[in-house]
């Protein structure tokens, strides 16, 4: 991971994610990175976004990256409550955006969160396709991020297509749902190859083309000529991210093992106090 003196890689990633969001659409904030990107975008780049506190719960509240997906904040801050039907109708009508964090993404932008190995006898069973098939058949923009760019996560062929990418996967699908952007800890990628393969759009400050190629499971295009550098976060970007995530829930997504466990416990203990302080519980029962 490149060293950066004034900002860390998570702040580059979140800022880049935020800058992709635009228009008046519902924005899911189901992960800490997605939540912070939505929040930052709304504050600085796309004021008409309708940010959700969790995927299906409250619209137009300020989401906070909490361990339990912000369900309390939703209630206490109210917002406009949505149903799951509202969420999927927004997906089908292309009024929805989400930053998806897949376990694998391949050169065509097919994504996998379902299993490693063959589906019928998986080496590792993951979680199931969730709502990714719906996103990748209906949204005019589909966004992905991966925090540990490696040949195990950015692969030639995904083990299972939870989400439909370009190429063969588009056979019975129109352009709706085709992959738009991948942001990783190394750079920003789009899908401008001849059959919609992944290409380099920009590299984060300090990242080399060689490093990207080394950590990518297939020969990646777009590295010809001058390669753009990802525009760094501004002071405002950084301030807003840090203010919105004082407990640094976002750091958990970058960690694993004992360090993650320790931080997790630490956040969990502090979270409740923070919530108490910020949003004193309103005693209410019903309407009127």
């Amino acid at each position, binding site marked *: 991971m490149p060293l950066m003196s004034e900002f860390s890689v998570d702040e580059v990633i979140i800022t880049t994610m935020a800058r992709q969001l635009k228009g008046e659409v519902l924005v899911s904030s189901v992960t800490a990175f997605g939540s912070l990107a939505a929040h930052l975008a709304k504050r600085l780049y796309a004021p008409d976004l309708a940010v959700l506190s969790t995927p299906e719960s409250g619209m137009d509240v300020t989401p906070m990256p909490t*361990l*339990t997906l912000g369900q309390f904040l939703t209630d206490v801050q109210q917002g406009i409550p949505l149903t799951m*039907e509202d969420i999927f109708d927004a997906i089908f009508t292309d009024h929805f955006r989400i930053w998806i964090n897949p376990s694998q993404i391949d050169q065509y932008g097919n994504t996998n969160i379902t299993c490693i190995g063959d589906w019928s006898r998986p080496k590792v069973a993951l979680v199931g396709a969730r709502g*990714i098939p719906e996103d990748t058949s209906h949204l005019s923009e589909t966004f992905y991020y991966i925090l540990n760019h490696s040949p195990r996560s950015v692969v030639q062929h995904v083990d299972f*297509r939870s989400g439909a990418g370009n190429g063969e996967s588009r056979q*019975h699908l129109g352009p709706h749902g085709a992959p738009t952007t991948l942001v990783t800890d190394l750079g920003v990628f789009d899908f401008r190859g001849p059959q919609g393969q992944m290409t380099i759009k920009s590299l984060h400050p300090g990242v080399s083309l060689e490093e990207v190629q080394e950590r990518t499971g297939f020969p990646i295009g777009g590295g010809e000529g001058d390669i753009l550098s990802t525009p760094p976060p501004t002071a405002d970007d950084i301030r807003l991210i840090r203010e919105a995530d004082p407990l640094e829930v976002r750091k958990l997504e970058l960690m694993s093992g004992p360090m993650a466990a320790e931080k997790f416990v630490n956040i969990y203990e502090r979270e409740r106090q923070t919530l108490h302080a910020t949003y004193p519980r309103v005693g209410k029962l019903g*309407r009127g």
Partner: protein
Amino acid sequence: MDKRMSIDEVVERIPNGATVAIGGSSISRKPMALVRALARSDRRDLTVIVDVGGPDVDLLLGTGRVAEVIYAFVGFEVLGLAPHFRRARQSQAIRFQEWTEYTVMAGLDAKIKRIPFMPTHATLGTDVLRVNPSFREINDPFGEETLVAVPALKPDVALIHVNYADIQGNGVILGDGHVDVLCAKAAKETFMSCERILSSEELQRFGRDVQILRVYSRGVVEIPWGAHPTGCAPDYRTDLRHLQDYLKAASSEEGWRQYESEFVDVDHPQYLTNHGGPEELVSRLKV
């Protein structure tokens, strides 16, 4: 009609081989007290339908109650993978059907609307369509489009947990509704646990938050902390500590036996006592 019943009476209404739809979502508002009672029963060969499953599915797999799972997702969100689910999938111990969030909703909605299928573009271009034995590709009768026909899902029983209910079986859900309404409408019999029973008059004051209509409810059980260790907004948040302990316990046979004896093979009051009692839970989990 007074539809109050006990946890055990609910379990009695679920026969071997039943298809059980469970509401909530991963670590949110799962009807865990009912699920635990089912987990410690001698029921077998259940088919479980979940949109977004979590400790509910995992526990029923852990105690061997399940023959098939129909799901869009099973996991513990921020905490990671579901251990018994993962083991069962990898060892091919039972049957699994890979669905998606909307197709589970569409399958339940097809059952509600008494139609054999719902058409959608979702799952085209993915391997879900390849591995799911229930879906069919069909052609649009009006044009050239290829579509997926999602068959009706037909739960015998739905289990859901809500914030408040009245004795007639109306239920208030204050946080995310998830797919609870679809489960309740689609199932032959719906059983609902709730944090608190209110009078019908009090309940009506919640207006559109009364999401479960009594015509769909067969039974109501008042079970405070009935969703624990999952969260029940705004009443209490998810008990991530307990879920961490669960994950650790499920990693060894001995740990799991210990967990079962302490938290599954006990009735609900004892379950709460084994957590230090409601006061302790309040101090940790109320916001």
